[in-house]
């Protein structure tokens, strides 16, 4: 009995490590919807199966440093992939800036906050008791949100109202579900059906350091050929079109789409 179980354990462990043909992608949460489109299109064209995990860039950095079996990492900043390269966990020559992200102030239409006319001033509305942002400790969008609020000299006033999502899509979910009345989230998350009806105000780019998003291939990957092909696809003609559809500006267009 015991021997059979041991064999089963090792067998299953082996089975999961052998499946190398699937491309494992760690993607920053702002890519939640764009990456599904990108992967779907790539799968259709190449037949390579893509498995995506979404989360905060900082968490992925820690996981990859600790040996998480990803092939390629799409961060929401450039720092985390660079750090992985410094510690030898990612390939230096694979570092690619694939998009510039943007911040948006977003609220469900029924909150009637008139974001488009009032902009940041709406945050001081008495009806706003909770403002959702991503956790600035490990999410680049959260860091940029804090930077923008500071630059607008609002941070101290609204600090007590901030609630942190584990990553930017959780912050978006907090607002979308009405738990928070308004959120500072990624523009790229506001193009899906359930977010389209909301009010939005694009935060002026002068208020925060550019969200220069880079990707890198994980050194321990045994699937580098497919990883390189996918990176090329994302930065290529078709990939750029999909990124633009979600408000993610391709690298050579630092201006907004």
């Amino acid at each position: 009995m015991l021997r059979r179980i041991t064999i089963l354990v090792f067998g299953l462990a082996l089975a999961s490590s052998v499946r190398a043909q699937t491309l494992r992608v760690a993607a920053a949460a702002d890519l939640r919807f764009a990456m599904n489109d990108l992967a779907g299109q790539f799968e259709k064209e190449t037949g390579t199966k893509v498995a995506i995990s979404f989360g905060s860039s900082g968490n992925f950095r820690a996981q990859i440093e600790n040996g998480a079996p990803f092939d390629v990492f799409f961060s929401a900043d450039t720092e985390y992939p660079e750090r992985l390269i410094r510690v030898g966990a990612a390939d230096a020559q694979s570092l690619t800036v694939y998009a510039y992200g943007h911040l948006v102030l977003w609220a469900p239409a029924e909150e009637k906050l008139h974001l488009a006319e009032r902009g940041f001033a709406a945050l001081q509305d008495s009806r706003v008791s909770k403002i959702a942002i991503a956790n600035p400790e490990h999410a680049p969008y959260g860091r940029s949100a804090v930077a923008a609020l500071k630059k607008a000299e609002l941070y101290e006033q609204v600090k007590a109202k901030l609630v942190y999502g584990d990553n930017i899509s959780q912050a978006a979910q907090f607002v979308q579900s009405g738990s928070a009345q308004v959120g500072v989230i990624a523009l790229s998350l506001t193009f899906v059906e359930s977010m389209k009806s909301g009010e939005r105000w694009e935060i002026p780019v002068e208020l925060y350091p550019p969200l220069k998003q880079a990707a890198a291939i994980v050194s321990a990957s045994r699937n580098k050929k497919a990883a390189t092909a996918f990176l090329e696809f994302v930065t290529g003609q078709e990939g750029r079109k999909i990124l633009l559809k979600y408000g993610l500006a391709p690298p050579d267009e630092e201006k907004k789409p």
Partner: protein
Amino acid sequence: MSGEALLLSLRLACMVSLLLLVIALPLAYWLAFTTWRGKFLLESVVALPLVLPPTVLGFYALIALGPRGAIGRLWQIMFGHSLAFTFTGLVVASILYSLPFAVQPLVTSFESLDRRLLDASAVLGASRARSFLRIILPLAWPGVITAVVLSFAHTLGEFGVVLMVGGNLAGITRTVSIDIYDRVQALDYAGAQQTALFLLVISFVVLSVVYGINRRVWSPWGSR
């Protein structure tokens, strides 16, 4: 609902409850019958996962199973990869996490046995192993079922530990409870709802089975 996540969770829960039974039977036997005065210390260790936040257990598991941890390094030497973010790593962490759910029902049912039966069996010349197999196990049957069912259900529903050591990898560590968390963040409420409802039903069925067995509504030996 994601079939892949569901299958993965069922596979995990089956393996963990089987392995736990193998580990918990001798451990519970010893805890129930030892006269050692320091027994309460081991009992406390076994019960720890009941009160520890899953993040604490997950944190230590991540450190221990990762490439720099003792277990992780040993595993890496043997198999070429660390245990963190693998299915096997999940199995190891879940065994720790669900240990009290397997051990405690067994201990309770062993302790409540009529000791005179064991004495009689010993007097009649039965070995300890024979007494265990022929007297203790059949009589403690409801405890065994409860242990297996509870550790199965607890593993199926665990979240914090899996999130910490698993890393949300589709087909490897994305269990149903992680899948629900992921779907809510993707604003896929319909998908989350289906999976959540499924877990709710399973949990209810499992608890009904456990309570039913303990009230002897049904029993593999017929009513007594």
